[in-house]
């Protein structure tokens, strides 16, 4: 017997003048069940979306702030997606011995997800089509983060430039969570070739922690930082 049935029965009892005493408790219980159903059915999902919206905005804003700081901190590392050695380092390119350049592969990756509220909004947007700006912003944030990590990795190895940078974006949503296809996750991998000035003081062996002192200025003309 569902809650609504009990209420209907109670109303019928009242209208027919039957004794209320035994059914009063039942009616109160039934109203309780109905309101609980209402809360679970409508209110909780809304609350859930609201929490996702607020927390999601907070997470995104905090991330954008951190990205801006990190990008400013790594602004001096030359980065390019061409294979050519940047002209600033051309003097060191051909030189062997202490003035040469040392190349090393660096890679970094990040997995980001979008909050459930924005995911829900995008689902609605998909119905009418057009640009899915929220997903676009997620992908760009992930790329910026991957690049910042790549530069940090290069800096930890004493590099002055990263060339031939490549980005790879993959949707691991269906891969990692095949059953519950809820959130949207994006993985961005960034990789490139880090160049560092060869020299006794700048050599950092692979696997060793970040050098305690910043690498000394390279011999010869110092690289010009990009504007």
């Amino acid at each position, binding site marked *: 017997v569902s809650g609504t049935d009990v209420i209907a029965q109670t109303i019928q009892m009242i209208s027919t003048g039957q004794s209320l005493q035994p059914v009063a408790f039942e009616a109160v219980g039934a109203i309780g069940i109905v309101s609980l159903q209402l809360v679970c059915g409508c209110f909780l999902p809304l609350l859930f979306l609201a929490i996702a919206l607020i927390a999601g905005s907070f997470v995104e804003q905090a991330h954008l702030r951190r990205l801006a700081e990190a990008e400013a901190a790594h602004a001096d590392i030359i980065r390019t997606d061409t294979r050519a050695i940047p002209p600033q380092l051309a003097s060191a390119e051909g030189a062997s011995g202490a003035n040469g350049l040392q190349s090393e*592969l660096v890679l970094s990756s990040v997995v*980001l997800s979008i909050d459930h509220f924005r995911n829900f909004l995008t689902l609605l947007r998909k119905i009418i089509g057009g640009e899915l700006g929220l997903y676009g912003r997620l992908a760009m944030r992930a790329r910026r983060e991957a690049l910042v990590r790549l530069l940090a990795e290069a800096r930890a190895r004493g590099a002055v430039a990263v060339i031939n940078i490549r980005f*790879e974006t993959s949707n691991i949503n269906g891969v990692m969570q095949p059953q519950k296809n809820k*959130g949207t996750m994006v993985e961005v991998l960034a990789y490139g070739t880090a160049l560092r000035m060869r020299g006794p003081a700048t050599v950092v062996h692979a696997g060793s922690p970040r050098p305690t002192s910043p690498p000394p200025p390279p011999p010869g003309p110092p690289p010009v930082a990009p504007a």
Partner: protein
Amino acid sequence: MIVVNTETVSGYEIVETKGLVQGNTIRAKHVGRDIAASFKNIVGGELKGYTELLTEARRQALERMMQQAQQLGANAVVNVRFTTSAITAGAAELYAYGTAVVVQAASHS
């Protein structure tokens, strides 16, 4: 071993091309990490567990590639590329490939 994703290595010259070398690994999701990630998924943001999982897996693919290069007698791998693909539901394949070469320090020109 020198590993770069450019076609040449600065300060070195390629004296012999040994051939294509590759390494891959297929990883399934980790249950413990998956639970943590599904909570994080609600508010969005970075899913660190997955980032670590994929980074570790990619390093393994890279190591397998380098092992192959070593067997060929190469001392460097150039033009390295990565791809990620969904092989089957619940698992991702991470694949790295490049060209194994023998390099020697460039003489003064």
